[in-house]
């Protein structure tokens, strides 16, 4: 549905020098899927989205929506944003303060190329307001809405012209934590129900994991990894992705040799000999980084069976309600572990640490 090929954009820095914002960005979004551009601020995700919208003019590359090429540097095509027929929700919502809720949502139908009858406009606006549960507020001044309602209105306005593609620029970042969590579900339900192809930009990894069919992790203008949420989380291709998605323990290590089972290796790190897993082929003496997620570190008061088991002491405990974060010291090294709050070992007492070899992911640094 959406294809982006070799997209490069520049912007002018403060001294007028060109700074590369997106560097050779390519991806495909199939019909009906929600695709997320995820990365820290300044990674080029918003620039990429604005290039798809047509609000930025890229330097190089090609963007097509369905069968229409909307931008191509090679062919000199640039369709202006108001003729691309895409829906977009801005980070600030950009609700027009001088219009009512109804007028805000009706605007795209009133300014578009094809003229609709008043009745038809009424019908479609009310239907879309109903979809976002704002039908009762139609005649209100838009500025009287709460943050969450403004957000839903912005969504309604983007959906009212039934666009082929919906672009969302950090739509939840201005909401408070509780509301953000609820809107996450709302957004997911709406997108799945309407089956609308969506590109979603966020710097919040949990949002990306919760909503997406597919995620592209971006860093410094480049895409580091594209894949479904579970794959990105469980099989990050490098240290940046592992670090950015979720929290993790990193251990510098050297490969000692391969195990008999394919994909498994023996590596040496501060903790001693560890059995680890790698997606790519490693050879002996390769320097790697082990990534171990806190929730993959098993703690128990009696020594468990199996490999990758160490004896340590409980160093710090932080109780967080539905779970607890513990720091466990093994020799000099401290590992962070996420445990069920029912585990009651006291600080300073002995604890056994075990890690499933499959969860010790070896990454190229």
């Amino acid at each position, binding site marked *: 549905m959406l294809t982006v090929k070799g997209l490069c954009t520049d912007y002018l820095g403060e001294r007028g020098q060109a700074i590369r914002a997106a560097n050779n960005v390519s991806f495909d979004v199939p019909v009906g899927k929600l695709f997320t551009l995820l990365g820290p601020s300044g990674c080029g995700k918003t620039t990429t989205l604005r290039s798809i919208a047509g609000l930025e003019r890229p330097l190089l590359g090609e963007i097509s929506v369905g069968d229409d090429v909307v931008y191509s540097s090679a062919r000199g095509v640039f369709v202006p*944003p108001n003729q691309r*027929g895409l829906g*977009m929700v*801005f980070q*600030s919502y*950009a609700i027009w*303060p001088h219009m009512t809720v109804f007028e805000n949502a009706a*605007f795209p139908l009133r300014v578009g190329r094809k003229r609709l009858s008043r009745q038809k406009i009424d019908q479609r606006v009310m239907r879309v307001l109903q979809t976002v549960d704002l039908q009762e507020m139609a005649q209100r001044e838009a500025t009287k809405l709460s943050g969450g309602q403004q957000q839903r209105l912005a969504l309604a306005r983007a959906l009212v012209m039934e666009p082929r593609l919906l672009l969302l620029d950090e739509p939840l970042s*201005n909401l408070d934590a509780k509301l953000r969590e609820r809107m996450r579900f709302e957004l997911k339900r709406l997108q799945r129900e309407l089956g609308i192809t969506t590109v979603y930009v966020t710097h919040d990894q949990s949002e990306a994991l919760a909503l997406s069919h597919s995620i592209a992790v971006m860093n410094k203008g480049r895409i580091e990894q594209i894949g479904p949420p579970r794959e990105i989380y469980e099989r990050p291709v490098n240290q940046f992705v592992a670090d950015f998605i979720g929290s993790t323990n990193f251990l510098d290590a050297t490969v000692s040799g391969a195990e008999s089972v394919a994909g498994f290796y023996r590596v040496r790190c501060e903790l001693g000999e560890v059995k680890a897993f790698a997606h790519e082929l490693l050879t002996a003496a390769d320097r790697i980084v082990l990534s171990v997620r806190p929730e993959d570190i098993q703690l128990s008061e009696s020594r468990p069976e199996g490999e990758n088991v160490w004896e340590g002491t409980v160093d710090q405990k932080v109780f967080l309600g539905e779970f607890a974060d513990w720091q466990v010291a093994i020799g000099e090294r401290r590992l962070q572990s996420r445990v069920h709050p029912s585990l009651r070992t006291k600080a300073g007492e002995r604890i056994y640490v075990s890690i499933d070899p499959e969860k010790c992911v070896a990454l190229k640094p």
Partner: protein
Amino acid sequence: MAGEAASGFAHAGPRFDPKWLIIVLCVALTLYLGVVPLGFLLWQSFFTPQSAAKAAQFTFGNYAEAYGSADTWILFGNSLKFATGAAAMSFAIGTLLAWMNERTNTPFKGLFFALSVIPLIIPGILFTVAWILLGSPKIGLINLVLQRIFDTDAVFINVYSLAGMIWVDGLHYSPVAFLLMTAAFRAMDPSLEESAIMSGASVLQVAARVTLPLAAPAVFATLLILFVRAIESFEVPALLGLPVGLQVFTSAIYQAVHRYPSQIGLASAYAVTLLAMTSVGVYLQSRLSSSGSKYATMTGKGFRPRPIDLGRWRYLTTAIFLGYFLFIVVLPFLVLLWSSLQKFYAVPSMEALSRLTLEPYRTIISYPNIMRSVWNSLFLAIASATLIMLVTSVICWIVVKTRLPGRWLLDNIASLPMVFPGIVLGLAIMILYLTLPLGIYGTIWIMLIAYVTRFMPYGLRYNTTSMLQIHKELEESAAMSGASWTTTFWRIVLPLLKPGLVAGWIYIVIVSIRELSSSILLYSPGTEVLSVVIWELWENGQYVELSALGVMFILGLFVLVLAAQWLGRRFGIREL
């Protein structure tokens, strides 16, 4: 209550706390400066002139005379036409330039902001004189050049007319409109326009349905500010209007005072009317800015909108900008420079070129009053700036940091002089000290009082901006460390206010040095300031000496503004 918390600490002993002395002095000074002249002006407008033979009597005669005559209604009409025209012209130019600078890829962007200082470095009287040399029907260079080109003796432009007055005043203050509209463009979240574009709206639809309605409050506020400023304008109506009998309120007040015998009552009646007009303007503007908060929408991370690529139209906007720059800076300055290098004023020609001389500069430097007036101007500028910044820092501390009842009133009284046109303030102060036998009238101190009163609102504004940024806990922790209020104010508050203090101080120095419309009614032999000397030179017809003084004055102000901007960058202030 910050005030009481701090005082509670200081009152632990039976000692006298100098805090209250400072506060009471500052409040009393503000009240005295803000309220008393206004009261006297109103009072005087109801009395007959006092003379040796007859004491002043209560009368409605001044108003009857003022409003009974058809001339007043002409005056009223002229004032309105002039102010509306000048405001509309500044607004149109300023908005076009602001749009070109903020939203398009017109070249020379660096120069645009240089424009903002032009009203500061070219005082109104010099700008007007320069435009007389350019646009007068007899000697105006533009007319002469066009007559040469088209080989006629028709008069193309005549600055001695209502249109001429509007042109000169509107042009001179268009940079103010430029700055105000630039701020308005920047305050608008660009995604409001972008979301309209994404909805499929065309450029025109975006402008008509989103940009303009959203900009409406800022547009009205800007127009009101420009209108109030134009109606207070003195130099342009006095130099261009009076010679052809075209009077507005400001010039009519000046004439009523300078007539023999002077008609102070009539002048007061005019002044009260003028004051009423400016008050309505300022009131409407404050109403507008408080209701405008509805439009202050939440903004995102603020992607600056990508400038519109004008393509070939770029050359047109560049031409507009360069033409404008020519009219507002290059031509006025060059014509003054030319005339300052002549023995007698002559229009440029090969013959005149051969007679270039520095004679006017020599004459002006040895001009009898010149050194004293330079000294007077500098003294008044520095003294008023220092006094204002210190007093308003205390006033603004009371208004911002305490919960004292009536503090809003104090704020309003300190801002009250904002509605006084310079000439009205001059008149009010003149009347006050003619009546009160304090021995101030005719000395430089009366001018200091006028300057301090007139520019107090600026000091208050600069200080308030800075004061709002000082967190209360910074003072509270000083109090907890055992510092008295006076120590805290001197060691904590004032140093933290420094950016605002310095910026405000420089601004007041600059506007004081150019002050004319109050000084013109208050000076006496020996207390002339630079702008008054320029005025006298004009009245005497000493054009070349005036130009020489003007060129040096402009260069001096230019250096001052550069220094101010350099200082501003060092202290991290972007105002001015």
